[in-house]
């Protein structure tokens, strides 16, 4: 129970709402909990094939490019970096542990130099030895292929600017050096970055063989280092993982050996069919959310197949701070006050699948201090909407009667929330309409300031579990790029004072500082959060040893089918 609840409040909520079941699940699990002897479990449960399903694939399987949580879940068992997040549940699952490096880095020069030592004797799934040259090449490759976040996360490496200017000839001279003889690798930063270890623990910094071509691998499987390797990938058929013949477990925390022999993720089946298949045992798990009309059935008849975990993620409404009416803070606050988050959670699938929130740091992230000013009785948590207050604010802002277009995706749930939102906005004095767009362009559309989106519904999942990944990424001046489809600061919010405080907090990593920034940003309401998302995993009856990491989600190498 303690292990399961890394966030105390969720634990309380669970106890209040669905205590019996969660308790039951935990107890059930306690019965099969390893007694610490993983070897014995391995002998008992090793083998079999895991049959998974996704409606759609998540793009390229180049680990240095792919930015989708579905594939990060795959890379978690196939790829390794120098560091990684522990394959563990709850809070331990958010800690960085040494992976291909044999220890956490030695940080010197006031945070400018990171020294690693490569674990000896490891091999890629191709049989090649993993050497210092591969590490150096992998960091360079990240720039050569214009990886997604090289400009925002990895540009603090010395020499990164040259790499960003001319990716093809990237050497990262001065930024990374290694000694093949001793197996040491040294990284030099241009300024300290307290989150750097977390950033290189992500799949972008996976170590690939030095001879991996400096272009998107696309559907060509990368050489693996983990217990599994991608045997084949066909985006309209399936992704197949098989055991990596060169794998041997070097760290149970970083990369435990897997129980099943192979993992197949099949594509194309719709949610309804996936759930049916899981219920009757012909599938083991799906990455897709269960359809709304099946939730009751799962809750009633398939309780033992369901696993619910809060995510470091929430749904939120971006409000453009540069376009009327939400250029007026009172108008933004009015929206935040007016929304009945409980109803929104119900639309999402019921109280078990979301916790209403108003603030910008979700529970589970350092610096999260429960805070909700936009509720009937402002305080720590949200209780009920305050429509009177909302109407008064709209009136005061002088924006009443204005036309507001809500942009939402065409996903059923998001459309449903948008329709509810429309009625709320109409209630508090606006004339609202809905513009629903394809889910696949939701974020790029919302981001581009030339689309002049006033208010839009979207969600945010953590990259790595740091407050800056919410506050700084979503609302810093640097995240706003006018006229670009890539401009994650959708609200076009820029407050130099807060920006400076965030810069400082990123150095100090002081939870209290972050809490203060969260408090102030929440008050300014450039976006208003609706609820923290809980993930429902439905698994087949034969799937055992379900382990859920807050970052990776279900850990493929931990579950067994026999």
């Amino acid at each position, binding site marked *: 129970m303690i292990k399961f609840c890394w966030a105390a409040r969720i634990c309380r909520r669970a106890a209040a709402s669905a205590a019996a079941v969660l308790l039951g699940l935990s107890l059930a699990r306690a019965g099969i909990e390893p007694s610490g002897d993983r070897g014995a479990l391995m002998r008992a449960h090793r083998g079999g094939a895991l049959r998974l399903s996704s409606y759609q694939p998540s793009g390229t399987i180049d680990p240095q490019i792919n930015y989708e949580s579905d594939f990060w879940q795959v890379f978690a068992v196939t790829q390794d970096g120098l560091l990684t997040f522990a394959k563990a549940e709850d809070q331990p699952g958010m800690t960085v542990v040494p992976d291909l490096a044999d220890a956490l880095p030695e940080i010197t020069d006031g945070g400018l130099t990171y020294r690693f030592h490569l674990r000896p004797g490891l091999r890629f799934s191709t049989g090649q030895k993993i050497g210092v040259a591969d590490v150096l090449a992998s960091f360079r490759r990240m720039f050569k292929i214009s990886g997604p976040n090289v400009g925002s996360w990895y540009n603090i490496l010395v020499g990164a600017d040259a790499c960003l200017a001319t990716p093809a000839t990237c050497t990262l001279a001065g930024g990374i050096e290694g000694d093949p003889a001793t197996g040491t690798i040294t990284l030099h930063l241009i300024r300290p970055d307290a989150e750097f270890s977390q950033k290189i623990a992500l799949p972008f910094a996976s170590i690939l063989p030095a001879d991996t071509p400096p272009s998107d691998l696309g559907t060509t499987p990368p050489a693996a280092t983990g217990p599994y390797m991608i045997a084949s990938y066909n985006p309209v058929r399936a992704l197949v993982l098989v055991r990596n013949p060169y794998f041997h477990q070097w760290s149970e925390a970083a990369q435990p050996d897997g129980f099943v022999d192979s993992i197949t993720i099949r594509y194309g089946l719709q949610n309804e*069919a996936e759930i049916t298949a899981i219920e009757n045992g012909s599938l083991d798990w799906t990455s897709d959310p269960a359809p709304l009309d099946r939730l009751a059935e799962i809750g009633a008849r398939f309780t033992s197949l369901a696993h619910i975990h809060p995510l470091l993620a929430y749904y939120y409404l971006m409000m453009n701070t540069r376009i009327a009416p939400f250029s007026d803070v009172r108008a933004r606050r009015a929206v935040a006050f007016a929304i009945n988050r409980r109803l929104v959670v119900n639309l999402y699938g019921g109280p078990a699948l979301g916790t209403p929130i108003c603030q910008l740091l979700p529970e589970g992230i350092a610096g999260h201090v429960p805070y909700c000013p936009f509720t009937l009785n402002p305080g720590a948590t949200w209780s009920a909407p305050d429509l009177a207050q909302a109407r008064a604010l709209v009136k005061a802002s002088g924006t009443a009667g204005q036309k507001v277009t809500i942009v939402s995706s065409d996903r059923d749930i998001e459309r449903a929330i948008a329709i509810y939102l429309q009625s709320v906005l109409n209630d508090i004095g606006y004339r609202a309409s809905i513009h629903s767009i394809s889910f696949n362009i939701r974020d790029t559309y919302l981001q581009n300031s030339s*689309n002049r989106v006033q208010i839009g519904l979207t969600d945010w999942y953590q990259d790595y579990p740091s407050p800056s990944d919410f506050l700084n990424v979503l609302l810093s001046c640097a995240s706003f790029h006018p006229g670009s489809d890539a401009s*994650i600061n959708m609200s076009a919010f820029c407050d130099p004072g807060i920006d400076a405080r965030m810069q400082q907090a990123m150095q100090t990593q002081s939870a209290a500082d972050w809490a203060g920034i969260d408090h102030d940003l929440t008050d300014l309401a450039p976006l208003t959060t609706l609820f923290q998302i809980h993930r429902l995993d439905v698994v087949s009856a034969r799937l055992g040893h379900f382990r859920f990491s807050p970052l990776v989600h279900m850990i493929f190498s931990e579950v067994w089918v026999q």
Partner: protein
Amino acid sequence: MIRLLAQRLGQMAFVMFGISVLVFLIFFATPGADPAARIAGRNATPQVLAAVRHDFGFDRPIPVQYALMMKRLFITQDLTSFVNRGEQVIPEIVAGTPVTLSLVLGAAVLWVAGGLAIGITAALTRGTFTDRALMVAGLIGVSMPVFWVGEMANLITQSRLHDTWLFFWVPPLGYTPLTENPFLWLKSMLIPWLTLALLYMGLYGRVLRASLIEAYQEDFIRTARAKGLSETRILLRHALRTSLITCVSLFGLDFGVLVGGGALLTEVVFDLQGVGKLTFDALQNLDLPVIMATVMYASFFVVAANAAVDVAYALLDPRVSTRSV
């Protein structure tokens, strides 16, 4: 004949060129669809975005981009998706074809058989209740949205009556290759076949009935009757033969369209990963290369079927060649 083929090929090339330009223009200017932004990831910096844009050639003039895409589609044949990077478009279509073919062929057998039965029965019982009932039933088939029929079929066979003796055999949605498990293939395709065939069965029945009745009024039938031939013989040997020409040409066109991805809605509803489904997913993703390729593929079948029907007509029906002088 060679002239005809050359002319037809020219026409096909022109039409496909026109369609490709149309598709390119339709999808090029969609906001939020900047492939570079989607490729670069959710918090890419402008610098990275520019690099990606340059990498993919998105910074070239539009006609050049069009030409490049066409070159990669037809000449080097290595066109890749914008969304699933590295996903080669042509192999995807090749992989989807057997699924679509399975669906369309099976449905075609059913609808042709059904259409023949309906048309002949109705023509023979012309004016009776049977005739009228068949025609109304056929018309109802034509009047149903295929996706809705699919939904209803799923509701019944997958959920409501799945656990009864009637539909216990229906496997979960999805496609099983014939080569992998022929029996499962048959079981999983049966409901989709029926759904798709329902739409066409009535149509063909009606068309066949009309042309049979027309044929019965022609002189040669009267002559045959006068000669004392049996009704069955008249039907099979004379009336049906002429009437089938209309149906054959219809069939050619329908088949072409369906193989080209026209069965999109059926594939979507039944989770069949065929060309139609591929097209639909690409459209949802605004994945221009895949859309371009599938649309080209679809229009190729339409145009080719059209040409085939014309040629068949010219060969079957000697009147055509002299008609337009």
